[in-house]
């Protein structure tokens, strides 16, 4: 398939989103807005310890409290074998999953679920939690990734068998991965300049505003209905079915509107608990996490430490890179080490590369996905050291990147050879942008960084139903996080040749539409979009057949043009074109309903590249960093709806700035989390940010009919290093560890002043 070059009516325009009115008027139903009559309420008892053996749990007092209807612990879940099973993009281990949703032998982090109660009111459920008597034997804990790798560190799971890592002793290292290309020894031998550094980032939360929420209702015949805020209703169905031993056909999951996910809602926490409680009680059970629970118990992304070494010629040609990336996984294996290793230097054409990574258990909540999982972390290291190289060589950092840029035909260290990609264009546009030439004042600095993300396709199903009045309904199966309904409707309108406002996109529950992989991997507008385009084409084919029937000609004598069936040529005969509305009105007589459908496992996702420019001003007396100006250039393939593409770019940049400057988990010496709210977990507020300028490069993906590439993840890859590089440019001090919070930066500035004074 190649992307069609044609004039578009809807693609590339800025239409009002179909979910917009409901969202601004408050009518939209988010997870916690859902209620059923007869509903009762569930709450979770959580571990106060970072690491402890559960000696006993006595729930009798809680069960005796009037109003309490059920209490569950891990005893109510059957254990699962330890094996990796495919689930969508990756593999899951249900033995770990059942222990994460309800602690079994041990609690492994502060906030780990230990029991759950359903009661007639939230207040009674909370009182009941206080009556559950859990006896713990507190164990030593480990929070830091480097500490967890040391001999003698507390071990989270002494039965864990590491993958790709040989050891006889119990270890927290769950996995080791390696990627290589060429011969790095030779590469470094050919280098004139070699730099080696160590970097560190903190674990950060996705910061979605909407806490996890669910209502589950299990009927007497074992049929379960679940309403929840999730990035994947099919994922919830699979996981709940597996954890509770229920057949897939007995579970129907309806996703609510979603108040942010960013990867954090690609897993289950409350859904299996609410479903089990409901099946015990025979009533619908509602559960909502508090913000504190979200921070203590839901998965952030990894923090990591890493070593990078880079070699280059005096002319700036990079000859070799080696890297070791150590990512904390939280309490169960699954840090995004492989993507971290694969993405680190993917923007560059480097002949000799060796990158290895470790997936490391620590006493924190199990990590979950966060936009471009792993890539921002490794890119912080890689893009910082590239910046150091530019400084060492006395070269403009963008020129250095351009000289080494991956292009069509470049073989990436992680395997594939790139097709058409727009990385170089992002550098060119950044270099030509007036931002890059604007003068800087005192204490101000400028940094740049690039980033790469694969993007994915995946299983996608879509239905396009032609209504009797000539309008259409598009049913797809992906929760809409970033405006995807608008984009899907625009693509359907484009294919059908009707007004955008005549297409109503809806998101089906698990029983209304074929399987869809979850909303993640920047896949929806690309992959589900492709299924919608194919489903619309299927409807068009049927419309043409109906016209052929009416005209009594062969079906291939009819073409679809601008919303009308027309004779393919004058040889077919002279007929007045038939509009979609006219054909829809006669559908009953010409063969019945017209329903286009498509289902496929979409391949051919086009990778995304981005280059960002960041200006900061540093207050040398307080260490405060203000971001003055920020420009994000990105290859977006084709922007179906430019506003929502820009929104993705801006949001990613802001999240990355927060990651760079202030976000971190603060643990007490006991391993309990101290900043469990947005007051002390400091994501940026609106007044912290300048307007983020999004610049779109459109290098179409030749494997999508409109050239779409995923756009939602790569904008979070460059900002961490862009900010750190800007701070270095402003102060001369290189911050090798994030966050660059005021106290940390001031300490670094002061010690560099002392060093300078001594010299």
């Amino acid at each position, binding site marked *: 398939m190649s992307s069609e070059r044609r004039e578009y009516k809807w693609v590339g325009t800025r239409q009002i989103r179909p979910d917009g009115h409901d969202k601004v008027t408050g009518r939209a139903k988010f997870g916690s807005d859902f209620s059923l009559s007869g509903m009762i309420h569930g709450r979770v008892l959580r571990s106060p310890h970072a690491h402890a053996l559960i000696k006993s749990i006595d729930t009798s007092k809680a069960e005796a409290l009037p109003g309490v209807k059920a209490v569950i612990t891990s005893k109510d879940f059957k254990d699962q074998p330890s094996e990796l099973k495919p689930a969508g993009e990756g593999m899951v281990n249900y033995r770990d999953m059942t222990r994460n949703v309800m602690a079994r032998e041990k609690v492994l982090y502060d906030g780990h679920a230990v029991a759950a109660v359903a009661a007639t009111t939230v207040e009674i459920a909370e009182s009941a939690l206080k009556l559950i008597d859990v006896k713990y034997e507190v164990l030593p804990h480990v929070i830091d990734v480097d500490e967890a790798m040391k001999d003698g560190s507390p071990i989270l799971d002494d039965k864990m068998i590491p993958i790709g890592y040989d050891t006889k002793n119990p270890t927290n290292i769950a996995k080791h991965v390696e990627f290589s290309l060429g011969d790095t020894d030779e590469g470094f031998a050919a280098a004139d300049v070699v730099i080696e550094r160590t970097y560190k980032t903190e674990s950060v939360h996705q910061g979605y505003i909407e806490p996890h929420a669910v209502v589950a209702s299990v009927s007497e015949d074992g049929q379960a209905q679940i309403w929840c805020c999730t990035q994947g209703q099919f994922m919830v169905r699979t996981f709940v079915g597996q954890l509770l031993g229920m057949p897939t056909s007995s579970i129907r999951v309806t996703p609510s509107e979603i108040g942010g996910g960013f990867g954090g809602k690609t897993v289950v926490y409350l859904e299996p608990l609410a479903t089990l409680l409901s099946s015990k009680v025979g009533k619908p059970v509602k559960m909502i996490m508090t913000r504190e629970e979200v921070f203590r118990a839901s998965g952030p992304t990894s923090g990591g430490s890493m070593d990078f070494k880079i070699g280059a010629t005096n002319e700036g040609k990079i000859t070799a890179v080696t890297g070791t990336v150590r990512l904390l996984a939280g309490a169960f294996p699954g840090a995004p080490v492989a993507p971290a290793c694969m993405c680190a230097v993917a923007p560059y054409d480097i002949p000799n590369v060796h990158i290895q990574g470790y997936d490391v258990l620590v006493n924190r909540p199990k990590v979950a996905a966060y936009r471009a999982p792993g890539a921002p972390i490794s890119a912080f290291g890689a893009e910082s050291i590239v910046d150091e190289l530019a400084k060492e060589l006395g070269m403009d950092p963008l020129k250095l990147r351009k000289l080494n840029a991956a292009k069509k035909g470049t073989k990436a260290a992680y395997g594939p050879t790139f097709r058409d990609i727009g990385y170089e264009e992002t550098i060119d546009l950044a270099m030509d942008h007036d931002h890059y030439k604007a003068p800087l004042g005192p204490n101000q600095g400028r940094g740049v960084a690039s980033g790469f993300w694969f993007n994915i396709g995946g299983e996608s199903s879509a239905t396009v139903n032609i209504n009797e009045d000539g309008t259409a309904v598009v049913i797809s199966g992906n929760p809409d996080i970033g405006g995807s309904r608008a984009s899907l409707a625009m693509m359907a309108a484009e294919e059908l040749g009707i007004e955008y406002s005549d297409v109503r996109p809806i998101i089906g529950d698990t029983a209304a539409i074929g399987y869809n992989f979850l909303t993640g991997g920047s896949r929806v507008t690309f992959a589900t979009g492709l299924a919608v385009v194919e489903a619309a084409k299927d409807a068009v084919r049927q419309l043409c057949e109906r016209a052929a029937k009416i005209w009594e000609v062969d079906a291939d004598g009819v073409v679809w043009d601008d919303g009308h069936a027309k004779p393919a040529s004058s040889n077919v005969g002279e007929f007045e074109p038939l509009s979609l509305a006219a054909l829809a009105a006669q559908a009953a007589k010409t063969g019945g309903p017209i329903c286009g459908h498509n289902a496929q496992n979409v391949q051919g996702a086009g990778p995304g590249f981005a280059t960002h420019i960041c200006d900061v001003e540093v207050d040398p007396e307080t260490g405060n960093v203000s971001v003055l100006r920020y420009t994000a250039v990105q290859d977006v393939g084709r922007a179906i709806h430019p506003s929502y593409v820009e929104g993705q770019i801006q949001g990613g940049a802001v999240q990355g700035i927060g990651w760079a400057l202030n976000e971190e988990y*603060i643990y007490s010496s006991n391993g309990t989390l101290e900043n469990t709210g947005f007051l*002390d977990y400091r994501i940026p507020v609106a007044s912290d940010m300048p307007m983020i300028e999004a610049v779109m490069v459109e290098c179409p993906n030749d494997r999508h009919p409109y050239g779409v590439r995923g756009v939602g993840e790569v904008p979070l890859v460059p900002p961490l290093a862009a900010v750190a590089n800007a701070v270095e440019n402003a102060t001369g001090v290189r911050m090798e560890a994030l966050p660059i919070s005021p106290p940390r930066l001031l300490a670094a500035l002061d010690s560099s002043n002392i060093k300078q004074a001594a010299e």
Partner: protein
Amino acid sequence: MESIEFEKPETVDQAVALLQGASGNAKILAGGTDLLVQLRAQMLEPSVIIDIKHIEETRKLTKNSDGSYTIGAAVAGAEAGDRDDITKDWPGVIEGWELIGSTQVQGRASLGGNLCNASPAGDSVPAMVAAGMTVNIAGPNGRRTIPVEDVTVAPGRTCLEKGEFVVSFNLPARPAGGGDAYLRLIPRTEMDIAVVGCGVAITLDDAGVVKTAKISLGAVAATVLVVEDAAKAIIGTKLDADAMSALDAACQAACKPIDDKRGTIEYRTKIAGVLARRAVTIAAERAGEK
């Protein structure tokens, strides 16, 4: 949670009677921007909540004939910020008050609430202390007036006795050659709690020499501090470099901060000196403007 009584007295005496008669824990409600958050976080379980906003005296901001002000304890920051007189006379007091929270919070947040919440980091308090403000307290034994700095005795604890509450504040007339300022450090630009706050009120003579000064620091000790050595360091000077570094050192020496998730001892101490220098510079500019 047990049920909570809610009362809306219209006079000071009614409020005092309600406070005094309450069986369990009675809480005053002004703007509620602390109280409601604490209720929801289950930090408090009051038996009765007494909304003082229906008592006229708590809701009035008056400029008196001698140039001083009487500020009702429940006046919101946004209301004061809209007034030309007080914002011109005491820009530092308004700064401390008006940077609380966000626009939404500003529509509610009061001086009485900020002071009686008794956080060492309350933003309005250092500038009130520097300006020499006093509070009018009503209680079963009538009224009493005490300096703002005497109200908080420990984090979360005030000197108010059972049955007492703050009715209003007294803010002196702006002295000739006077200027004030408040600065705080937060890692973000809003919606954060001061890592350090510094309020300054000074007067200059015609030659630009500091005649009087009062310097107050927030968030660096259990309660808001008055740093007399800092004032001494600049009184009689033209704020030359030596005076400024003495000021900085005096502020650092006065700090008794804690290490917590919001800041380290070392950082808070250093920043206290920095903010004091900067706030004094702003106050002096304002004093020079007349």
